[in-house]
């Protein structure tokens, strides 16, 4: 369904296949977040063309476009003044769903992220742990069952243990849901775990596009090597044990 072509930041040209996860990877300031925000028109391109579900985003009202795309940000970006239930109900409410349908869907989607509504629905964001907040952020993005998800460093602020278990949950969830996902991360391990396709960015330009193995085993140029740095060997041993001999 989603077959968008992105030309953004600087001569960026990408295509995200439907039902797949694409990671925008790079150091901070490389333009990965800006690229992501162009998709739901939180940023406006100065030139180029951007298609979502085959339609030019500039022809769509930004609010309508955004409501049709799930959006997850660091720490969940939850509204601190309303409880979990009302946080998750935001987009369905904006879409004008009936109260019954919203109630039903929230129970369902909170179940999906492992936070039963009966226990967590009435809690305020500050009463949750970092990992729980992040789950609510994902549940909120999934609430209206959009076919596209944008995730900006979704697990960035979590401790390593929580991050890994949430990453695993995401992989399982994605196997069920088959959303089209664009993920922004500076963590190559995360990109490798969650995404089928990785785009390494530097100063707004694509350095390399491919799988984790492509990136680790065949860095395109010195910019790619610089991004991996000394960790490259460890990363290969860790992520691609079958190839560890290749580099040694």
């Amino acid at each position, binding site marked *: 369904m989603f077959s968008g072509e992105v030309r953004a930041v600087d001569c960026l040209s990408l295509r995200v296949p439907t039902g797949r996860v694409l990671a925008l990877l790079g150091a901070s300031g490389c333009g990965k977040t800006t690229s992501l925000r162009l998709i*739901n028109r*939180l940023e406006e391109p100065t030139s180029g063309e951007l298609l979502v579900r085959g339609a030019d985003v500039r022809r769509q009202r*930004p*609010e*309508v*476009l*955004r*409501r*049709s795309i799930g*959006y997850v*940000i*660091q*720490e*969940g*970006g*939850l*509204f*601190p*003044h*309303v409880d979990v239930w009302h946080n998750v109900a*935001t*987009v369905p409410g*904006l879409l004008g769903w009936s109260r019954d349908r919203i109630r039903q869907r929230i129970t369902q989607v909170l179940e999906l992220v492992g936070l039963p509504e009966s226990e967590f629905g009435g809690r305020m964001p500050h009463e949750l742990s970092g990992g729980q907040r992040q789950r609510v952020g994902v549940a*909120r993005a999934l609430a209206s069952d959009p076919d596209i998800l*944008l995730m900006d460093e979704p697990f960035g602020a979590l401790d390593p243990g929580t991050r890994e278990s949430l990453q695993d949950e995401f992989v399982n969830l994605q196997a069920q849901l088959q959303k089209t996902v664009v993920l922004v991360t500076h963590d190559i391990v995360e990109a490798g775990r969650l995404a089928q396709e990785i785009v390494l960015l530097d100063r707004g330009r694509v350095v390399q596009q491919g799988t984790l193995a492509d990136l680790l085993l065949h860095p395109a140029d010195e910019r790619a090597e610089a991004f991996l740095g000394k960790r490259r060997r460890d990363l290969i041993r860790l992520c691609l044990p079958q190839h560890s001999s290749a580099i040694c």
Partner: protein
Amino acid sequence: MLAATFFSDLLRAWERSHDSFWPQAWLFLSLTVRALGLALLIGIPVGILLTRLPRIAPAVNTVLALVQAVPALVLLALAIPLLHVGQAPAVLAAVVYSLLPVVLNTYVGIIQVSPTVRDAARGMGMTGRQILWNVELPLGLPVLMAGIRTAAVYASGMIVFGALIGAGGLGDYIYNGMSRDDAGLIWLGTIPVLILTCAIYWGLGGLARLSRKNSALGMWLGGGLIVLTSGYAVFALMDRLLVPSKETIRVGAKDFTESQILAEILKQDLEANTDLRIELVQNLGTSVSINAIKHGAVDLYAEYTGNLLTNKEALDLPIPADRSTITTMVREESRDRLGLVLLEPFGLNNTYVPCVRRATAQRHGLRTISDLKRAPELQVVMDLSFLTRPDGWGGLAQTYDLRFQTPPTQVSPNLLYQALRDNELVIGFATDWQIEALDLVVLDDDLGYFPSYHAAPLVREAILRHHPEIAAVLNRLAGQIDDQTMRRLNYQVAEEKRSEQEVAREFLLAKGLLE
């Protein structure tokens, strides 16, 4: 000891004034709420607008902070040329004064919302208006409520000050108490102001805490409060603008006891003997009262001929050589130039009077001012303004060719008679109650130096055209209040601490003008 005096003072003030207490307390609260409501109505939208115009926000906030830095009294004085006297300028000054905390806290409350949260709201597909209502206002509400609380305190403080320009309310007690040195009356005004202000302060503080805990409830209660307050303010404003209080005659009173008694006499006389509704506008200075009646903010009040003659806001004329022509001249000129009618004088002539203790008079054989030439050793005591007035000390000494061995002492008016010793000559006023109480001898102005200060009702001509009965009723007071009667009335209020309402009523009953 102190506590006992405090309670007995307060109790006495309450006994004297409990009839007027509840209306005054309500008026104070009503004016405060009106000012707060208008400040919210203007301040909240301006604060929201500033968050959308970040470039001009610092400039606007600076201007408002400067306004805040202007002393409250000055702000009040600045409102007079715009709206004259009464409730309107007091409310205006209170609105201006309480605007800063409302604008600033609305602005800060919204600005401090975390960018991540705002970004999430946008990313979720909320429109600007939805972000404002669902995210920015609820999250800014605790800060906004704190601002409203500050604004309410500023507004109530300014409304108390407003009594100085005739707005009425609890401030009346405070200022009357101050001018009469009546601690009980001051407390009677101050305590309820403190209680009401504290109640507003705690109430709004509780609401701010609640809105931090439960945002939805806070929005309902806080929003409801804002809507109710603003609604009341708009309603009161509309009521004033659309339904002008035509049949209400406003009687002015100056900021001293005698003028307040005379105003009360005029008010009760008119209430009893006409169908008009009467409202008092209290605590006006002489120039302010003249301005107020010229602009119709006051319809009538008791004025003195000498003031009308010399005051810059009135006729601003030199004192004629023949003092006996003053009343006629003032009457004609006031009517022609100011459109104000001077009715028949009450009888009292509250001019300056030099007086001495009886023992001093007997020792030096003093009956007239001319006799003072025989007593150059006397020490002259006068109030601060007498030395520089056109009808003051210089002219007096010249006219009577007086020379004293020591220069005159100047004191504030309410200290004139305190510790009056032998061999002192005090320049007092003809109706000062102390003349009677201290058994002083008033020296006769045998050369006719002092201009006359005959008190008489001064009425707007326009009002008399519509209500000629006012002249008929008030002219029955002609000659009924001579110097001695006035001294007695002043004594009853200033020294016996009775209320001017009661004293005026008693006087009118005795004269058969009231049943």
